[in-house]
């Protein structure tokens, strides 16, 4: 696919909000849209970090092919100590830093996605590069990402710590999305085991998944990286999503 056809646009583009509307619903399984930290804070991306949001615009079809969401935050410790709370932590930390006027020193991406019909066409790398260009233009030296490995959902019974060690014959990560980043020069830091916490009642989970949960226990959910745990006494199902902290050093 010819890359000239695509243009990186930001929220400054007049139709940006309309163009990206509905994109996340197309991309994620329903339950993924119920992370409380995401839902309470999503507007902050546009209110506080507008310059860090971008989309890949297909000028030929006048559609958005993919989207990159990120923000700056402050991290003075070694990257090896990045928190277990991954995605949820980073989002809250960035908002806190901004509110308190703390000068950021790291760039963190929380979503880099392509619409299903734009996948497997060589657009993943341009998307990653577009986000990395933001890191550089802001004078930040590291882009950190709590990555959601794209094929882990097929291996829900394997721990993510083991899964990230799986390699292809070329010695690159087995997981396609991790592989894209490593090919682009990223380094895998470690797993963050509770990157997102998604909670719902039994009825909510039944609505999100089209399954039934008649008893307590672990359930494999389509599209989830680990099983969810249902507790009927508390009328609650909990999904803890593990992600992988990776870093692109751009400086």
């Amino acid at each position, binding site marked *: 696919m010819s890359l000239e056809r695509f243009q990186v646009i930001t929220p400054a583009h007049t139709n940006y909000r309309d163009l990206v509307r509905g994109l996340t619903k197309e991309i994620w399984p329903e339950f993924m849209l119920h992370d409380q930290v995401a839902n309470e804070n999503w507007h902050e991306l546009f209110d506080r970090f507008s310059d860090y949001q971008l989309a890949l615009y297909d000028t030929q079809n006048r559609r958005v092919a993919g989207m990159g969401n990120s923000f700056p935050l402050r991290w003075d410790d070694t990257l090896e100590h990045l928190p277990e709370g991954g995605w949820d932590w980073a989002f809250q930390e960035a908002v806190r830093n901004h509110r308190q006027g703390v000068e950021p020193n790291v760039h963190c991406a929380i979503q880099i996605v392509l619409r299903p019909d734009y996948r497997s066409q060589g657009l993943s790398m341009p998307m990653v590069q577009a986000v990395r260009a933001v890191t550089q233009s802001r004078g930040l030296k590291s882009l950190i990402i709590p990555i959601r490995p794209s094929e882990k959902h097929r291996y829900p019974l394997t721990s993510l710590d083991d899964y990230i060690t*799986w390699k292809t014959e070329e010695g690159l990560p087995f997981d396609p999305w991790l592989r894209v980043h490593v090919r682009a020069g990223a380094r895998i830091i470690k797993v963050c085991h509770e990157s997102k916490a998604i909670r719902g009642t039994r009825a909510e989970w039944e609505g999100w998944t089209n399954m039934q949960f008649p008893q307590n226990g672990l359930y494999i959910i389509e599209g989830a990286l680990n099983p969810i745990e249902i507790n009927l006494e508390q009328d609650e199902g909990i999904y803890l999503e593990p992600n992988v902290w990776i870093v692109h050093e751009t400086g």
Partner: protein
Amino acid sequence: MDTSRFQFIKPGDLPDYRDRAGDLSEVSWPEFMLHDPVANENWHELFDRFSEYQFALMDTAANRMAAMGNSLPFHWDADISDLPEMGWDWVFLKAVEDHKNGVAPNIQSAIQIAIHPDYRSQGLSTEMIRAMREIGRSKGYEYLVAPVRPNQKSSYPLISIDDYFKWTNHEGLPFDAWLRVHARVGAKLIKPCHAAMTIGGTRADWESWTGMKFPQSGAYYIPGALNPMEMDLEKEEGIYVEPNVWMAHKT
């Protein structure tokens, strides 16, 4: 069911019956299910020894085999609540052995009712069960038993069959669609048979059957399987033990 369009046939009614039946099996089951050694070594016995217990439902308008039923007779003196844990594999071997030894059968077991995907949700399964039961009735047997594969268990691979087979819907009928079809036409749930089929293969076999990779030993979720599959790389073997549920129809 439109009775003028659908017609029951026996193996002798079509010169290519076995080819068509083989094609129907292939589209009805996930690939790994076609690698049970007991089934593969003994399938021909259905036609060599028990031909009158095999039948199919033809869609005469489209000249297609819409469904097929396979069963066999065996001898059982104990109570049906004592039927063995090895369910499907056991009953197939028992029937062949009885026939070889000239032991007169007194009971019938179903081993497969396969509905072509294009013909599901049209009530054909009920007609297939009735037709199968009619064979046993004509022989004067008291029971048609069946190691039933609860097909929706594949969405709940982490729930034990002992729990799952007790799940009910709001009408008090079994939650599982296949168990429910049998129950609706009068069958009683007897008990699970935990090792109804045992399917073993090398790592390479399983990789080709499933399109997955198995880089380490452990339990894996396999689409379409009722329980996880256990891969042991030291032994170079993956084993899937399929649980079924013994049900009994009084003819």
